[in-house]
């Protein structure tokens, strides 16, 4: 039953993505523009760029994810799909988890694929790239899961634009600190494993708790 529902939801989201495939590229394009703006503002000097490359890339990915956050539950709330999710014989938190995973796979995963190219734009030293990719692979799902709780809390509001950012950004701070810290440590020749392991632990915790919290928030928001 749970897998049937999950498969149905994944198939639905993939079809919707294909119907609106132009939208799917937007987060990646936004991140590209942020990176280009940084490169222009810093004057295109390779050494200056290389020093801040990892931090800029992480910020670009984080902001792109933030912009995509409002679409996580908004459409399903507006057309009544969430009501049917609540009445389905599978737990709402399970559907929330699957939906969040699909949202991550369609908005953050393209960014991950684009990261090596963006890193090249910013002259990121090549030996830092694997650490950066590892921190993104662990950090972006964590961002999506925390973001799901915030998106669920604001789903009952008509216009929640900047509120989502105000609620989500403080929660993102620790992730950014550890993720950017891991790359900075690698740049100085230190071992980045500790920071990455902490990100992994946070991800495991959020995988269990965030869907439960988001499901509870949806129930309250649609009351």
């Amino acid at each position, binding site marked *: 039953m749970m897998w049937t529902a999950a*498969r149905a939801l994944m*198939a639905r989201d993939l079809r919707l993505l294909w119907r609106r495939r132009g939208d799917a590229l937007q987060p990646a394009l936004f991140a590209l523009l942020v990176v280009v703006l940084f490169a222009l503002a810093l004057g295109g000097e390779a050494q200056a760029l290389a020093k801040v490359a990892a931090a800029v890339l992480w910020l670009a990915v984080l902001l792109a994810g933030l912009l995509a956050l409002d679409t996580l539950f908004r459409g399903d709330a507006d057309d009544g799909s969430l009501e049917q999710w609540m009445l389905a014989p599978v737990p709402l938190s399970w559907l929330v988890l699957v939906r969040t995973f699909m949202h991550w796979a369609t908005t953050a995963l393209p960014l991950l694929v684009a990261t090596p190219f963006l890193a090249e734009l910013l002259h990121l030293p090549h030996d830092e790239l694997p650490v950066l990719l590892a921190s993104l692979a662990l950090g972006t799902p964590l961002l999506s899961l925390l973001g799901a709780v915030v998106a669920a809390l604001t789903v009952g509001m008509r216009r929640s634009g900047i509120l989502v950012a105000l609620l989500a950004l403080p929660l993102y701070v620790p992730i950014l600190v550890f993720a950017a810290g891991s790359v900075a440590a690698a740049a100085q020749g230190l071992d980045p494993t500790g920071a990455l392991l902490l990100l992994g632990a946070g991800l495991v915790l959020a995988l269990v708790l965030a869907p439960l919290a988001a499901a509870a928030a949806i129930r309250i928001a649609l009351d």
Partner: protein
Amino acid sequence: MRFFAPAAWPAMPDFEPSHPPLLSARGLAFARNDQPVFGPLDFSVDAGEALLVQGDNGAGKTTLLRVLAGLLRADSGEVSIDGRIATAALRSHAVSYMGHLPALKSDLTALENLDFLCGLHGRRRGQLPGNAMAIVGLAGYEDTLVRQLSAGQKRRLSLARLWLAPSPLWLLDEPYANLDLDGINLVNRMVQAHLRDGGAALLTTHGAYAAPPVRTRMLALERAVASA
């Protein structure tokens, strides 16, 4: 398709008096911001029976259905399904809810929407989405995007979803809205067939212009007067 058989009045199944009603409410009341919306209400619906909830706009019909479906929490009173206190797990298997919002994705085709909703809610044995679409008169629209359907056709698609759901209890909020005469007859025939299979249905309507030709009881809701 037995669905289109000449509308014979179904023989009411005989229940022993001890059989619990499919749905019963005791002292059910709901208030919003300390303003009573409805209640306290006592009623029960047996299998093979339809309850027509009538009332003016704002009388609390939709709220009552949402409380029964479990989307809202009642302030007092209790709801039982088949003699057991209704829990979320029990409701999810016993109740199908059709509200004002269609729960359809406008960028998917009609059939893709039905496939998803069947995956979510499960499917009645022996029923296929294609057949259900033919029953509600949407044959030929399988691959049409829902955004291109009219309001009445979307409502028919919601009815097809309902027809496929395995739940015995239907909660229909204004099922006649947006439907033409043929569509109103369709709702009545569907309710009739559902009741013949041992199901039950609650329908809200603001007027008495359409009632399914089955054993129907009425529940009249009046607008709760706010005590100043």
